[in-house]
């Protein structure tokens, strides 16, 4: 079962995302965090197949949080979600170790594809 950690401060967004993920990916376990502190705690405590990380967090910069998660051992792949669609964000997120970048407002299929892509990449790397 795919384990996904969902990090976003908006309860509405997390709720909607849960539904979309369940619909698109079938059997998934979803962990939720409302801010960077919770996210890092959960990411460190449990094992996740992928982390969906909103860049705009109330307590810390999303980019910094991304870097911290990528420093965990083992480090789960992180897909960044952001309201910002400027290419600079994509580049910066990639540079910080993101496995993908999703604009908020992306269609469900795009989100699912991004997650599957990240999982496939991880699996290849583990083989």
């Amino acid at each position, binding site marked *: 079962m795919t384990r996904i950690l969902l990090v976003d401060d908006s309860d509405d967004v997390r*709720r909607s995302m849960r539904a979309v993920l369940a*619909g698109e990916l079938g059997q998934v376990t979803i962990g939720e965090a409302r801010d960077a502190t919770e996210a890092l705690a959960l990411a460190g405590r449990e094992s996740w197949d992928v982390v969906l990380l909103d860049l705009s967090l109330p307590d810390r910069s999303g980019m910094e949080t991304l870097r911290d998660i990528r420093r965990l051992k083992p480090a789960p792949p992180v897909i960044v979600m952001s309201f910002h669609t400027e290419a600079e964000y994509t580049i910066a997120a990639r540079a910080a170790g993101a496995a993908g970048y999703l604009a908020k407002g992306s269609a469900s299929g795009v989100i699912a594809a991004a997650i599957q892509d990240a999982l496939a990449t991880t699996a290849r790397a583990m083989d």
Partner: protein
Amino acid sequence: MKQSNSVFRVLFVEEEGLGQPRVDGVLSLVEKTEYVRAGSLREARRLLQSGNIDLVVADESRLRRVIDSIFTLVGLFSVGGVVVDVNEAPLVASGLRRDQVVGHRFIDLPWFAHSAAERTRIEAAIASAAAGEPVRLEAWIRSARDGRPMCIDAAFSPLRDQNNLITHVIGSGVDVTARKKAEEGMVASQARLAEAQRVAHVGSWEWNVADNHVNWSDELFNIYAVDRADFIPSYEGFLSRVDSEDVAHTTAVIRQAVQDVTPFIYDHRIRRPDGEVRMLHTRGEVIADGAGKAARLVGSCWDVTDRWRATQQLEHSVSTLTATLEATADGILVGDRAGKVSALNQRFLAMWRLPSEIGPGADIRGLADSVRDQLADPDEFARRFADLYADLEKEAHDILRFKDGRVYERYSKPQRLGDSVCGRVCSFRDVTQREQLLASVEARRAEAEAARKQYEVILERISDGFTALDRTWRYTYVNGSGGRMLGRKAADLIGKHIWTEFPEGSGQKFHLAYEQAMAEQRPIQMREYYPPWHRWFENRIYPSPDGVSIFFTDVTEQVEAQEELRASNEQLRALAARLDAVREEERRVMAREIHDQVGQALTAIKLDVGWIRSQLAGGVAAAVDERARQVDALVDQAIATAQRVSATLRPAILDDLGLAAAIRWQAREFQQRSGVVCDLDLPSDGAATAPAIALTLFRILQEALTNVARHAQARTVNIGLTLDADSAVLSVADDGRGVSADELERPTSLGIVGIRERALAVGGAVTIQGSPGLGTTLTVRVPTTVGQTTAVHPA
């Protein structure tokens, strides 16, 4: 002595001559005595030959008188040196009485009291005579009367009796003091002659022609500077010392003198061994032998070198004076008392247009008459001439004006020789040019005076204060306004010293500026507060070599108005900065709201719509599915709008990714929007910049790019950012038409004003340079060290 019982015959000789002294004692021994008298020595000699005479007695008193009357000093001494008798001469000479002398040892007499040595010599002489050996010596005695030294030529000889036994010593002496003195005087006068020769530099010589023996005086050796030991005088030796230029003349003179046996006088130079040349004046005489031929030449030489040199100098001086007289620019005329020219120079003749052959001896009145018509006023000239020559003592200085415009200055003074006037010296100087110059200077002065009056009229009308100060800082002019501003009557200040009148101003900045303007001779304009009066003045200080002119205006109101304006500008700027900061904050808040609330809501809606659509797939009416698709599309539009508005309000990229990323994004946006190609020269994205600085530079970049798009007509724009330790520099350079200076200054160029104000708010500075046809470069430099503290954030 013959003893007899009969008659004792005594012959008295009354004439001077024979006889023996001291017979008194003998006579008393004779009982019966017969006296025979002889009147003369011849008779006495006859009586004696008769043989009947026992004793011859000469008239002792008479003999004594004779002996006493002679100058020879005669003394009879015992063989032991005691005085037995003396004649009058030594008593007179010594001032002693006979009893003070007779019966005393000769050497104990006062005559010898001065010298033990003399006493010893005399004692020895007497002893010698007493022993039979006559002695002659010169003895110095001292007069007992006046202490005067006397030289005595003395002889001591023994006196023997009939048995040839020495009974006494006879001494005689002659006073030779005068002769001695004369001898000494002779020696002294010879020395004096030599000394005189030495002092007068006169040497004497003698030349025996026959044997060529030449004798020189000591001084002549001195004159030739040769040593008597080294140089044996001879005619040839003499000639060898004569200066080569004078040898021919010397030999000619002497040959002539010898030939003619005539005295001669001539001057010639000699050369001393050390090469020094001396001039000698020689006088000689020729002494002829019996045949009338020259036997000896005697003469004397004076060393006249000093006189000769003085003469040479005098000649030189005279020629110098003459040359000076001719070289002078003045015309010189010297007249004697008789009114004749005694000297003049060529310049005088030229000045007076007189023939050049006129010279000493010409009649001055005649000269005056011949030139009087050249004068503008001949009668006046003649009258003054008469005045001058009427009074020998008169000194005059006057100006002579000529018909043709010449102007001469005349100085006339009596010429004096010692105390008396021997003539008159007139000097003439051509002052025509000077007079013309003076006239033109006077004309110019009058013009300047007129101009000055005109200026004064103007200066009195202006509202500025005006004062003129001379070099000694005294007022030479104060206009009415100036007087009012200084609180004085203008006329009362003239001639007064500025810092005496206004001591409170001494040392103030205006004072220093006056001094500086005067010292450097350059105008100074200054606006300064004058503390003593609590007023502001603007001074324009114009120096000249004669002093300074100062325009001054009370600008207190103006300064205060400017100060108010400046303060109000400051307030406005602060207000504007504050407003801008508030607006930025509002934007930031709004952008955040849009992101956090609207954006998240739209995100959730988008996901939900997507989920609903997936649930509806295939199981609902086509109309529902279509409506769901439309909602999805509307949500997409709303999200895009929210993203755009948020980014416009406050680009989150600036806060999230930094200035470089924000610039890169902005440039891409701009390029897409305007078509102007952006070249970037940026630091890496990681470089951190303080948020206030980053925001300011980003907003300036946005303004600059807006200007490029609106005005530049550029094809490319280069955007550079440089970050160093203490400053950040943003440059935006386009290749458009180039902004003009006018456009930069135009108040309506709000974009530029905004850029400047933004930079100013963080302590930065903006330079904008435009080159027509080449583009515009904007450079903003802001300090990164203080930027964070400036008031951009709302406080």
